[in-house]
């Protein structure tokens, strides 16, 4: 199975449900190099079409999802989305000129916090990443990083002082990642922050951050702005990474111990043949085009 066919098996976010234009206006966008049109019919029903062919749709996590496959893999579960006392915050979309896999990998990285998210998610000289664990959950086929701890000056909009923040990361499908972190205002629950990535093509993506928080004080504008602020700080770093695609050859980018999650993510992608947006082998394939390996 080639990289594109593999990628076609998944669901992808293409719009925030609340901001899809009303009939007869439509929204045009791209997914996996294909033009698609999102339409809200007169009766309010939504549809997604490519070349006049309707694709399956799914309305979940405040976004409209679609898949080019007639039999896509089931969409991943976020149980916290059922907890109605959380505040659900779709943060809009940001276009980034990088591989969709680079966007996910960056989201999993904590070592960059003090340098990119200075005085918010990290600060100098608190740059050390303490040892943590990474596993592949075979039942769910997910990458899970646990026991991640990091000193953060302002971990969330609702945090007033620096705290040691606990993180758990989940990668439930190649282009989606979810993190659970200490809720600054409550001990018994965790805030949920996700990025849903829409692959425009192998070197461009639209990133849809989404949050499910316990925060009774911040306004919606403040919560959205906080997440956008964080993500825009990442954006200029992501756009300057070379190569644009994510290298899966361990010789190309030298990891450190702090990059355990990234290493696991890259291996997991390689093992399952999720190579859309990846650079598999530099010597065979210097330009990173037309990756093709057998899926497991």
């Amino acid at each position, binding site marked *: 199975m080639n990289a594109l066919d593999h990628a076609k098996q998944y669901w992808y976010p293409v719009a925030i449900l609340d901001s899809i234009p009303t009939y007869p206006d439509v929204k045009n966008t791209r997914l996996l190099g294909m033009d698609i049109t999102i339409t809200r019919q007169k009766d309010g029903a939504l549809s997604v079409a490519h070349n006049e062919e309707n694709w399956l749709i799914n309305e979940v996590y405040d976004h409209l999802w679609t898949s080019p496959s007639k039999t896509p893999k089931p969409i991943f579960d976020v149980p916290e989305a059922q907890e109605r006392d959380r505040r659900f915050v779709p943060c809009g979309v940001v*276009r980034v*000129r990088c591989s969709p896999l680079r966007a996910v990998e960056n989201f999993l990285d904590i070592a960059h916090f003090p340098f990119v998210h200075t005085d918010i998610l990290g600060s100098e000289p608190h740059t050390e990443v303490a040892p943590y664990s990474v596993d592949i959950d075979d039942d769910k086929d997910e990458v899970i990083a646990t026991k991640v701890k990091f000193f953060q000056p302002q971990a969330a909009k609702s945090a007033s002082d620096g705290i040691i923040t606990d993180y758990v990361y989940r990668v439930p499908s190649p282009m989606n990642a979810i993190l659970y972190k200490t809720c600054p205002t409550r001990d018994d629950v965790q805030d949920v922050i996700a990025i849903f990535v829409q692959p425009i093509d192998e070197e461009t993506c639209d990133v849809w951050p989404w949050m499910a928080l316990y925060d009774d004080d911040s306004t919606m504008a403040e919560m959205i702005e906080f997440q956008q602020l964080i993500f825009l700080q990442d954006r200029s770093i992501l756009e300057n990474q070379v190569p644009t695609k994510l290298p899966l050859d361990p010789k190309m980018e030298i990891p450190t111990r702090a990059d355990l999650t990234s290493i696991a993510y890259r291996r997991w992608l390689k093992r399952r043949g999720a190579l859309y947006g990846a650079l598999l082998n530099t010597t065979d394939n210097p330009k990173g085009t037309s990756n093709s390996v057998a899926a497991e």
Partner: protein
Amino acid sequence: MSFTLYDYALSGNCYKIRLFANILNVEYERIAVEFYPGAEHRSEKMLQISPAGTLPILKKDDMVLSETSAMLFWMAKNFNAADHWWPENDVAAQAQIIQWMGFASDLTATIGQGRLHALFQTPIDKDKIVKGGRAALRKIEAHLTEQSFDGFSFLTGDKPTIADIACFPYVALSPDVGANIGLDHDDYPAIRNWIYALKSLNGFIPMPGIYAMHELKDHEIDYGAQKPFKTGAAQ
């Protein structure tokens, strides 16, 4: 509070006001406005505060300002900023400052619009915007180069003025518009030096896309305690 700022963290224009307030060590009330995706700045509630429908808005009692040039001028005067920010008795310097404040609007109309498009896909005439942005960078590069011949690091002299603050964000953010379209800083050494000069000011704060200079921070390394390098075979 000294004033209220209706603010959006990702806006280069809003950043001018946050940056100058921080340099002047002035506290203010900040109200986040959801520019994107909610377009809250054009909501009925916000239009009642400022009919211009733009951000930032600076409000002080009954005074409402929607132009950043006016805000920077008011801040320099109202908070008794050091004279170099707005030279009180130098009319020629003031005229130069006003001239560059006008240029700052060109930067917003080109690089600012191009950046919004790159981030949020707002509709623009991209060719026109990119050409305009390149022309603006060349103009400021040529001027800063000439300034450097006279030993000056800033737009109108050896000290920064409110014109430097006004022009800084969208020059510094120009790489956000896109790669390989002549809007990154590689070809503009005078612009890079000017950005360093501004980042070195006391009270400088970053915004997404404009980073602090980590390499200049003092990490209190005790060089005397470092072990000398061993020579010989590697272990």
